[in-house]
């Protein structure tokens, strides 16, 4: 549990005059689930986009498995083992569920038959196999979120970035997704997850990193973070605490 897989080192990201992420540093150890929380607009998705190569950091660096990956394009990062999901799920709508996943499988399985076989396995794992031939546009929200995870998993990543994969699901669907995430952790996957549903994130995370206005305001185990006055204030407004 002590091998560092990801180091976010004083990352700052500005858009024009706006600083969306401000000097954030933390590390992720191999095999753990780290939760990234904070109120809406705290900079979580921006940070995700920096880590996954969609933005290059204005300052600071991101190191993955010993290599500086800051500013590398997303497709390169997918190649070195970083899979991600998107908060706003946009499947390749004109394609079937299977085809969606096959595209991701090509990364490690360049032959189409191998990729398809692998995609089937992923769909079995994520519970979408019976919908494999449905058009991705026809999935429910729960299905789409699951498809997002399937696509990321099909890359066979070492490190998974999950952006709000539970939000918007009903409790049963949410529980299934949590179950899936725990299973993936059991298989040795390292996960960084952004989530709004506290019940979920508190349960599954080994550690939490809390952002507010782009800055890291707390880090620690769920219990530690829960007791943090700053965190409570960020969530409940100042009347609480």
């Amino acid at each position, binding site marked *: 549990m002590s091998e560092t897989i990801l180091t976010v080192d004083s990352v700052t990201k500005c858009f024009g005059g706006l600083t969306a992420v401000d000097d954030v540093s933390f590390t992720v150890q191999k095999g753990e689930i780290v939760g990234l929380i904070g109120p809406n607009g705290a900079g979580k998705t921006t940070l995700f986009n920096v880590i996954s190569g969609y933005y290059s950091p204005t300052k600071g660096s991101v190191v993955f498995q010993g290599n500086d990956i800051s500013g590398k*394009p997303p497709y390169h990062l997918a190649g070195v083992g970083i899979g991600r999901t998107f908060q706003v799920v946009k499947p390749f709508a004109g394609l079937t569920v299977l085809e969606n996943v096959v*595209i991701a499988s090509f990364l490690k399985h360049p032959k189409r038959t191998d990729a398809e076989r692998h995609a089937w396995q992923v769909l079995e794992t994520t519970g979408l196999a019976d919908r494999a031939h449905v058009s991705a546009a026809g999935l429910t929200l729960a299905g789409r979120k699951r498809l997002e995870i399937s696509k*990321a998993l099909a*890359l066979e990543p070492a490190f998974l970035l999950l952006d709000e994969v539970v939000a918007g699901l009903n409790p049963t669907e949410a529980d299934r997704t949590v179950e899936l995430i725990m299973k993936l952790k059991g298989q040795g996957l390292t996960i960084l997850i952004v989530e709004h549903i506290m019940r979920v994130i508190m349960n599954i995370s080994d550690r939490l990193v809390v952002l507010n206005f782009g800055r890291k305001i707390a880090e620690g185990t769920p219990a530690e973070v829960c007791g943090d006055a700053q965190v409570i204030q960020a969530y409940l407004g100042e009347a609480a605490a």
Partner: protein
Amino acid sequence: MKTTNSRGPAILGILVAALLILPLVVHDTFVLRVLTEGIMWIGLAIAFDVIAGYTGYLNFGHGAFFGIGAYTIAILMMQANLPFWAALPAGGLAAGVVALIAGIPTLRLKGAYFAIATWALSRAIQQLALNVEFTGGPDGMRLNAFLNPQFFYYLMLITVGLTFLILWYLLERAPFGLKLKAIREDEEGAKALGLNPTKLKMQAFILSALPTGILGGIYAYWITFIDPSSTLGDLVSDQAVVMVVFGGMGTLFGPALGALLIFAFKTIFWAYLSDFQLLYLIILGALIAVSVIFIPNGLWGTLFKRKAAPPRREEPALTAVVAPEEGN
């Protein structure tokens, strides 16, 4: 796409056999000539669809590649005295190189830019051909005549057949086609899955240009006379667009069907209404507009709407980690 049911290959096989035997039965050169050109249009339409339908980037200057191929071969044969077979690959290559050069700035841009930039490129290339000397300017170029209708029929058939097979393999069987579709659907999302859109779009653009250039070359040798308005004019591009939009974008059969129907219509129209040739342009334009409004998925997409295939397991799952759930 799983359009191949049990009847599909059979029908296709019969069709191919019929096309192969046809010249032995039919000796009417007019019929042969019409068929040769019809086959050529199928090739042009499916090549156009690689970048338009599969990748989602409309190339409104597809005719430029055709003209470049034609001129390259004419110039190499007439001025460098190369034999046809040596010149032919150069036609495709030249079109590919132009696609590469034109694609570098334009493929980085949004779809609207690309569409109009390619269209402007085709106008510019036409201007170039009109204004430089080695193309003969507006007078065009005459090639040494090789009058053998059967030869050109078979050459066109084989070229288009091979193009079809290669494109079908690359786009429908190999990973390439799915990757292009992923870019068409969501370029940003595709990046997260390890796809490099810039590279893939460029490959698609070149793949679209290569066969088009070769067909242009064959056309030049066959027709023996080319000028800027016949090979580099709007009509080639315009027809390609209408064939693909009318037939159905994003498949190979749609554009082929569109090419057949539009070309048949054109042949009949020009044969019987040759006084109203300009009317043809109006009909082309109107057909595009009407197709867009009423059959946005094209004829093929509308007639053979893909049904949701029944659940099918190709391989038994090797590691069923989570039991499949009842539908949600």
